[in-house]
């Protein structure tokens, strides 16, 4: 694997190799473009049949909050896309408990099923990956 490809092109050349990809989401959804860009790249990895996990921590937990209505700010509401991830066999969604609680959020505030994990558990999840992509 070369540094420049980040592994993705290599997987295509040697089809059958599946790596563990973790997408680390730490930004709120609309103030910056990071959240949307992450989602786009998640779908790329899904197309290559990789083992994908998503982590939501810090302000990233805001990305999957229910009831987003963006008509007023004239920006695409991409939150329904998180619900479509299941159809791409992306079912490992982790939310860091500390981040969620600091923001006054509960599991029922999220629009997808997530596994709530402690910061220590999140560390283990991160450590067990082949590729970590940060947004």
């Amino acid at each position: 694997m070369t540094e420049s490809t980040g592994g993705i092109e290599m997987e295509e050349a040697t089809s059958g190799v599946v790596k563990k990809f973790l997408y680390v989401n730490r930004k709120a959804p609309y103030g910056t473009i990071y959240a949307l860009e992450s989602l786009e790249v998640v779908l790329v990895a899904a197309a290559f049949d990789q083992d994908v996990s998503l982590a939501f921590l810090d302000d990233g937990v805001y990305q999957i909050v229910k009831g987003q209505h963006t008509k007023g700010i004239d920006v695409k509401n991409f939150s329904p896309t998180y619900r479509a991830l299941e159809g791409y066999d992306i079912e490992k969604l982790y939310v860091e408990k500390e981040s969620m609680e600091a923001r006054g959020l509960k599991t029922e505030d999220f629009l997808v099923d997530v596994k709530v994990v402690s910061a220590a558990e999140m560390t283990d999840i991160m450590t067990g990956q082949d590729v970590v992509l940060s947004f």
Partner: protein
Amino acid sequence: MLHTVNKSPFERNALDSCLAHAKKGSAILLIEDGVYAALKGTAPAKKIEQTTKTVPVYALQADVEARGMTGRVVDGVKMVDYGGFVDLVAEYPAVQSWL
């Protein structure tokens, strides 16, 4: 003076700097990710609630709605639309943006 804050209080210190400089007679408007400061049950919201006793605090409704935060904003924070934003800018002699 009208102060605007457009950054999440969990990611930047823009809100804290603003609160430290907002005197009586001024107003604060939360926009974009700044609206997260007004969410019930959070540490920043307590500071906002305290601030509303001396300085009026507003939040841009479209930004609250976009983030799924409708109905979760602390009491005392007034919602404004874009027209209200313009009115606030016109009402105060200057605007300071805490970026």
